[in-house]
């Protein structure tokens, strides 16, 4: 079914839509929480639900690519690949750029997202490393 048609059916209301900051005096920002959205933006271009070809990257560096041929087979429609932040931002960007081969309009957003996700993952894992060193020291002292 046409991507544009699906988008027009879900653009007003869908379960992934997230609105924040609404008050009686002003509007709100609209985000979209589905996995295949590189900007988490509520718009057709980045939508992971409406588009048959979509790319997504989560904060834990899980890269999701969609298979446009398997649109009516949800279990096969998306492939998720877990990326390793230790490989480095440059190599990760290359992987993500390769995944965006069918969606060149998403390249810019993909690169930004890889950089941010990688930085976040490095930061998250740093604290983990610090803890384990402490544990090592503690165990040495107890000996």
């Amino acid at each position, binding site marked *: 079914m046409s991507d544009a048609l699906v988008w027009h059916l*879900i653009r007003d209301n869908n379960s992934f839509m997230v609105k924040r900051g609404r008050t009686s005096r002003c509007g709100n920002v609209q985000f979209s929480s589905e996995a295949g959205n590189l900007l988490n933006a509520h718009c057709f271009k980045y939508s992971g639900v409406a588009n048959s070809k979509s790319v997504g990257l989560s904060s834990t560096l899980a890269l999701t690519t969609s298979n446009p041929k398997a649109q009516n087979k*949800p*279990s096969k429609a998306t492939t998720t690949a877990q990326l390793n932040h230790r490989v480095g931002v440059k190599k990760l960007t290359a992987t993500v750029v390769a995944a965006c081969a069918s969606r060149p309009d998403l390249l810019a957003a993909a690169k930004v997202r890889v950089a941010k996700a990688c930085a976040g993952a490095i930061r998250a894992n740093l604290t983990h490393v610090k803890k384990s060193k402490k544990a090592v020291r503690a165990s040495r002292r107890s000996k």
Partner: protein
Amino acid sequence: RAGMQTPAESWGTGRAVARIPRVPGGGTSRSGQAAYGNMCRGGRMFAPTKVWRHWHKKISTNQRRYAVSSALAASALPALVMARGHRVNNVPEFPLVLSDSLNRVSTTKAAKAVLQQMGAFDDVEKARDSRKIRVGAGKARNRRYTQRRGPLVIYDVSEGLDKAFRNLPGVELAMVDNLSLLDLAPGGHLGRFCIWTKGAFEKLDSIFGTYEESAKFKSGFNLPRSFMNNADLTRIINSDEVQSVLKPMVSGPDLVIPKKRNPLRKADVRVGLNPYQAAVKAREVTKQSMDKAARGKAIAAKRKVVKGRSKEFSARRKAFIAAASKEGDVTF
């Protein structure tokens, strides 16, 4: 009649009380209290709701059937079903049509196993985990819990299926002969997750008809036709037929706003603003590159010039004063 069961009458004016009707009589705390008004304690509400309100709205049969057809079509698109909120990421195929042996499933345990095998149990879990006590007065009016809707199992013949599936949280059952919009598009939102049995799915053609023939069981009903045969706007716009008759694209003037460069940091920008800066810079450079002796010489030379000038000026001053004193007083 609630709130109106007193012969209350207003006391009128002149008694230092509001003119609202008051309960007559005496000997009880109720006497003299205000009555009838929606603002009074124990009064009737504003515009008491009547039973003879027009509850049921008519809708033409064709419209109703159009809606059900649309809802069924929407339930076949995983995108719409996911957008509605169903957890269908592990379902192998859409629409999910299971063999007729599903009709003979007779225990809830077996039903659960079937759903788990078909990747449909995620949706049931979602419904189960969403069970909460209702917010609002409804909780005290026999509507205690709310939960999400799970999958809708559509069958044509049940040999135990309905009893097996009915206790699973969120799962609803429907016979294909009387599909309701309330089940297919709950809350008016298209894309309910439907699980079909083979017999039910095959029966759809005779119930709703096809594009080739009218519906057998709905007299005079034909499937709604789509407004656009090809709804893929991107493909239409990019097609040869459309692109070949378009006028060439008019691109506006390429506005290039140059990046601001700070003259305090960039020498070339500073020289552009203040051409004398080049000379200042050159002087500084020579000064830096001079050694101590050369610097001493330069300073001495400068001092000589200044001294010479000061000598000259003092000589001019003295000459002026001498001439002025010789001149004497000036009268106007």
